[in-house]
């Protein structure tokens, strides 16, 4: 078990290094940070001097090694755009992203499972057809349009929800939460729905397909033959067996919700790490971009590691293989 985890950890470190390396290669094509840092009055000499001081004239591999060296000591430098330490910027914005991600994951899970069961149990009803059609629209419309559409409906026309931002926040230690105020909750609704739609549809379709599959199996037929109530069959037997793959997928999707809330955060001016990244890309704020991409890689690596360990515990074949040294 320990050897297994160590091996996995080693692989995770490798993945992070590769991500950092690719990120650094890409940065060379995003543009020159110095031009937006100095303003239009700067002379050619000034620009060159700042570039040298920041080490941007060094060869690519020197910059990469320096970045990795500093990152290992937990130093990501200061943001070229905001002049504040990068790790502090990301930590400050993380709570906003995590609260949004969990809220939307919750919406996706609850509505996805409920609607999935409903459409599986009544596959031929009119309402199922409607739900399935709407869900298709939800997946095919870009997040940007859904967000703007919701803003115009609920904020501009109906004026019942705020159009942007996170509302009032409360500081709990270093964690800045929007979940303790009414305006915080109201602000959360639209972005959480926007972000959840894709996952919601995914989970709903997955539950539906799995459920239809399970309903055809022998043990369900046998349960019917035993004269169990419809309710006991649907929820006690069918649903329980449906949920195993759903939980796996939902867990893995949580990573991408955290990492790719970028568009939703931008549309709603949600002050999370995603909107920080977008603002940084525009001015080639390399320290923030690099730290963000490494952070995203870390999120995925950790989630995958946890999933792997869970599999290891659940699946006896893996466990036995490890014991015998394979």
């Amino acid at each position, binding site marked *: 078990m320990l050897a297994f985890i160590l091996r996995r950890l080693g692989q995770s470190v490798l993945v992070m290094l590769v991500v950092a390396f690719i990120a650094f290669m890409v940065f060379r*094509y995003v*543009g*020159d*940070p110095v031009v937006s840092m100095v303003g*239009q*009055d700067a002379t050619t000499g000034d620009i060159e001097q700042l570039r040298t001081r920041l080490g941007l004239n060094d060869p690519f591999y020197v910059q990469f090694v320096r970045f990795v060296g500093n990152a290992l000591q937990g130093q990501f430098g*200061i943001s070229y755009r*905001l002049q504040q330490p990068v790790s502090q910027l990301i930590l400050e914005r993380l709570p906003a992203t995590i609260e949004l991600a969990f809220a939307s994951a919750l919406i996706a899970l609850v509505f996805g499972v409920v609607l999935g069961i409903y459409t599986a149990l009544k596959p031929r009803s009119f309402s199922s057809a409607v739900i399935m059609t709407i869900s298709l629209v939800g997946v095919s419309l870009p997040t940007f349009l859904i967000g703007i559409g919701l803003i115009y409906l609920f904020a501009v026309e109906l004026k019942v929800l705020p159009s942007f931002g*996170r509302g009032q926040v409360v500081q709990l230690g270093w964690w800045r939460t929007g979940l303790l105020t009414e305006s915080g909750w109201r602000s959360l609704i639209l972005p959480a729905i926007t972000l959840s739609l894709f996952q919601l549809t995914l989970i709903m379709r997955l539950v539906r397909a799995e459920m239809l599959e399970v309903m055809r199996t022998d043990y369900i037929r046998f349960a019917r033959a035993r004269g169990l109530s419809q309710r006991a069959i649907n929820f006690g037997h069918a649903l329980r067996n449906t949920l195993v793959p759903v939980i796996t997928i939902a867990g893995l999707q949580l990573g991408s919700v955290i990492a790719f809330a970028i568009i939703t955060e931008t549309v709603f001016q949600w002050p999370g790490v995603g*909107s920080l990244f977008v603002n940084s890309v525009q001015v080639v704020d390399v320290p923030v971009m690099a730290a963000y991409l490494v952070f995203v890689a870390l999120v995925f690596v950790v989630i995958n590691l946890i999933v792997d360990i869970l599999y290891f515990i659940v699946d006896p074949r893996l466990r036995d293989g490890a014991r015998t040294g394979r």
Partner: protein
Amino acid sequence: MHSSLTRIAAALVATTMLAGVANAETLRWARASDSLTLDPHSQNQGVTHTLGHHIYETLLDRDVDGNLQPRLATEWYLKEGDPTVWVFKLREGVTFHDGAEFTADDVVFSIERAKSEHSNMRQLHAEVESVAAVDDYTVEFQMVGPAPIYPNNVTNTFIMDRGWSEEHDLQEVQDFASGESNYAVLNANGTGPYVLTSREVDVQTVLTAFEDHWAEEPPAVTEIIYLPIADAATRVAALLSGDVDLVQDVPVQDIERLSSTEGFKVETGPENRIIYFGYRFGEEPLRSSNITDSNPFNNPLVREAMELALDRDAIRQVVMRGNSLPTGVATPPFVNGWTEELDAYPAPNVERARELMAEAGYPDGFTVTLDTPNNRYVNDEAVSTAFVGMLGQIGIQVTLASRPVAEHSPIILANESDFYLLGWGVPTFDSAYIFNDLVHTKTETHGTYNVGLYSNPELDEKIISLGTETDLDVRNQTIAEIWEVVKADRVLLPVHNQVLNYAMREGINLAVHPEDQPRMTTVTFSE
């Protein structure tokens, strides 16, 4: 369905309007991006200066017509008998937000800080040799040589308190390479009309009126909530939904709708920013052209043909939806040296342009790549696209290379572009600023954005003389001479001046500021 929605909306608008009048003193102000830092000398950037002007103050200020106005300095003049010394008489009875008194020593400290190595304001004070306090309310600036228009350069240089700055170790401006952040990035102590109450970067900044400010009339706005909203559609929605009161950076496609929506209005005014095309000079063949033995742009006939192909009015109507001021000279109208005569531009004449192309030896035209930014100026890529079509009519086959400004700028600054679009603002409101950077031969210190490498030694000499000529009539005469050559040579191909639009709810009055730096102290409320 829709009509009932509208009715509910109308009712809600009515209630928010009432609420708005009841606490009219708070103004929620949204624009596309946040101030980058509160450190007054670290960034030379409009958005950062705009917020800065509410917390800090400068020696001199500009009104919405672009004229210099007294601020912390009440008088300014060249020292009698010595044209190399500027004297600034300071306002008495001014205090900083922490209660410290404002004196000449603070000016000395601030100018020295703005001149220091890591400051992005230092080029504006490059001609200052030293600053000295004569008494508590008089400062003398010893210039390197005669500097007749130097006061134009102090309108964005903020004055800090020496005591506060030394206490927090702020003698040095924020250094990007240091890896550490200084205290002034997030904290401020100015003499300005508003005190910083709270700041959450990229989220909101709250300012409240400074009770001990020297101005006789307190501002109508007693609290400012500054809210950066990056997405244009969300920004407009925030105004329409009543979540903000005032929006800068209004997208041109929304202007008409906003002005026709009841309860909202749009203020429009010219911006101090010219949009122009530039091209490569010199004999060397172009990099992106099929003509490999000569440089077609170096031929004055080709440049004339291109100007005749450019239909500025069509760009104004179609691309800018009326929101631009077409011009024939590469300077905005506020700037010293601008004249109506220069501003005039020829009517497009494709036939004549084709003749000129043939006369120049390119009857079949040529190919070239046009580099354009796509996120820097208003509809920048669309302006370039329109010109590509117009040039096609005279046989110039243009490939458009469109990039975000972060990629566009390094390419043109490395002189790697044959043909490009660029915008230029003139913070000193004087033509010399344009000549120094766009017309003077490119060197370490001059012609930074003269990326077409135009070079005219005779003009260079005249441009340098502008820096030290103290007789303003002679100086203005030289400026006129330079413009004449620049226009006749078609050194740049100007398209238009940008127009600014501020959208706000009815009941707020705010004029457009030519540098896009509106002051909330000038806001008034009406029923």
